[in-house]
């Protein structure tokens, strides 16, 4: 007896689907369910249904709203800088052609480094007193004192400082994807535009960027999702401090759950966070990507 192709396809997909259902969908269901309860952090402790109380507390808390804005700012900073630097490097590699290949490979190396290691390394570079960056800037005569900028201790700039390792780690990814996209642009098209008198800026904004649109959309969405979930690099550098100035959503949820022992509230925050991420991602895909249109 031969089963139909449709059933055979289903049979092939079932193990992976079951795995994702059990280990992703079910924990998510638990998360949403927990968000309606006041839960004691002690195992086997009381568990009382409180309706939307946790959501009300979340939206009413400054910590939550602050973390939301910080996560948004962090994501925008990381993705914007990565995109600008990645595009710059991709154009540089493309204009240099084949001889830059070795350097393209070397440029990839941060992608293999654990975020925790990257966070640590940059903390070591930026730390007060024996951080190298302050010292080098001082020796170059830019700073009057090596500790003039408190990279990780000044609440006004710390959110930018903690983003540096993330940018350093994944600009390579942005560059790689954009570089691959650039290789798909027909050389004829560029030459034709050049013959028609197009200069570099109009070449970039009128021809290259519009043609790269789908690739840019994928790169921005993928990196945006990752940046909005940033945890390791921030935890190791500042643990959200000073004065919560670098506390993003992942950190706040983690601390609410583990340190402050309020799983119910943490679940409500997690649920809101997840819904917001899905909404933004779908919106971004729909507007930037526009599959099937113009490109």
């Amino acid at each position: 007896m031969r089963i139909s192709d449709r059933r055979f396809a289903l049979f092939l997909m079932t193990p992976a689907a079951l795995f994702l259902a059990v280990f992703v969908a079910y924990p998510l269901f638990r998360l949403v369910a927990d968000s309606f309860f006041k839960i004691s952090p002690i195992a086997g402790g009381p568990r009382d249904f409180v309706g939307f109380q946790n959501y009300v507390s979340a939206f009413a808390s400054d910590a939550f709203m602050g973390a939301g804005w910080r996560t948004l700012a962090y994501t925008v900073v990381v993705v914007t800088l990565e995109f600008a630097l990645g595009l710059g490097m991709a154009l540089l590699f493309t204009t240099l052609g084949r001889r830059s290949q070795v350097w393209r490979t070397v440029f990839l190396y941060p992608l293999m480094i654990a975020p925790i290691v990257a966070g640590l390394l940059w903390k070591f570079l930026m730390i007060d007193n024996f951080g190298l960056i302050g010292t080098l800037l001082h020796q170059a005569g830019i700073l009057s004192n090596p500790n003039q900028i408190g990279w990780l201790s000044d609440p006004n700039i710390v959110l930018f400082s903690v983003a540096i390792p993330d940018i350093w780690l994944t600009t390579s990814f942005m560059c790689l994807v954009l570089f691959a996209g650039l290789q798909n642009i027909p050389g004829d098209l560029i030459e034709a535009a050049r013959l028609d008198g197009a200069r570099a800026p109009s070449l970039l904004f009128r021809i290259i960027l519009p043609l790269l649109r789908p690739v840019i959309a994928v790169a921005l969405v993928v990196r945006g999702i990752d940046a909005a979930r940033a945890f390791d690099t921030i935890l190791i550098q500042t643990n959200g401090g000073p004065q919560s100035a670098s506390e993003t959503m992942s950190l706040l949820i983690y601390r609410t759950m583990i340190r402050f022992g309020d799983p119910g509230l943490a679940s409500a925050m997690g649920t809101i966070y997840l819904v917001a991420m899905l909404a933004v991602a779908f919106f971004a895909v729909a507007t930037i990507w526009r599959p099937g249109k113009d490109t």
Partner: protein
Amino acid sequence: MRVAERTRPDAGKAAAVIAESSVPSTTHDGRRKRRGVNREGLEAGRRSTRTLLWVLLAAAMVLYGFPFLYLLFTSFKTPIDTIAVPPTVLPKEWTLENYANALGRSGVVASFINSIQTAVISTLLSLVLAIPAAYGITRYKTPSGRVFIMAALVTRMVPPVAIGIPLASMMASVGLADTPIALSIAHTTISLPLSIWLMSSFFEAVPRDLEEAATVDGCSRLGALWRVVIPVVSGGIAVTAIFAFLASWNEFLFALLMTAIRSQTTPVVIANFQTQFGLDWGSMTALAAVYSIPVILLTLLLQRKIVAGMTLGAVKG
């Protein structure tokens, strides 16, 4: 569009002469080499421009490569020099003391074994689940397949912090708390969607005739997949395996939430150096170097394949 076929007078020839003298042919394949002009598309033509661009590249590479080199240099300093004020770039005295200290700490070697175990189990699990699923999605194009690949993509957006705690309590309730198996399952929730996505791209490139010929010759559909299709995509499987391995090797949050002493992986141990033993920067840099260098070397060796894998999803068109 064949506008570029228009003859370009002297400017083109001049560029060709300069290009010829300074760089060998820069065309990607012989087919596109026309009229002796070696530049194509976006490649820079003038020599002065090229020199400037190379200088720019050198500056970027130094800035980009320096942080990790500094980590390496620091790991060879003496523990006291590590936190000297002001810091120096190169060690005053090269020593392996930091390495001896780091690897001598209790639990460090065990954490390496845990990291390897977890990453290997997670890689195998990802492949075993992703290969048939991706094949089912690409080969049969059923509506359920389309729904499934979208669902797998949405999974990528789930923040690990949101499912880490429920996952940990699920593992505890089946007696798997603090084991490499439990952690590798958690890591597979990250690598499986990626693996399905990658493998789908690789299967897409396999011509249908191949399996059809095999089935005509009396192979079952599973037999055709196993004996004919899988050998063809073995390169793609290797790429997928590397990505799954790296995802687990470098992961920190699940490892922090789901392991205690027994199955702790090295990223958690590195992070713990900070609190447990005061600020032991020297040992931390040494351990970070030992943990990072094997994967950097491995991936640089296999870079061609990895580049193909990273760009597949985004540039498929």
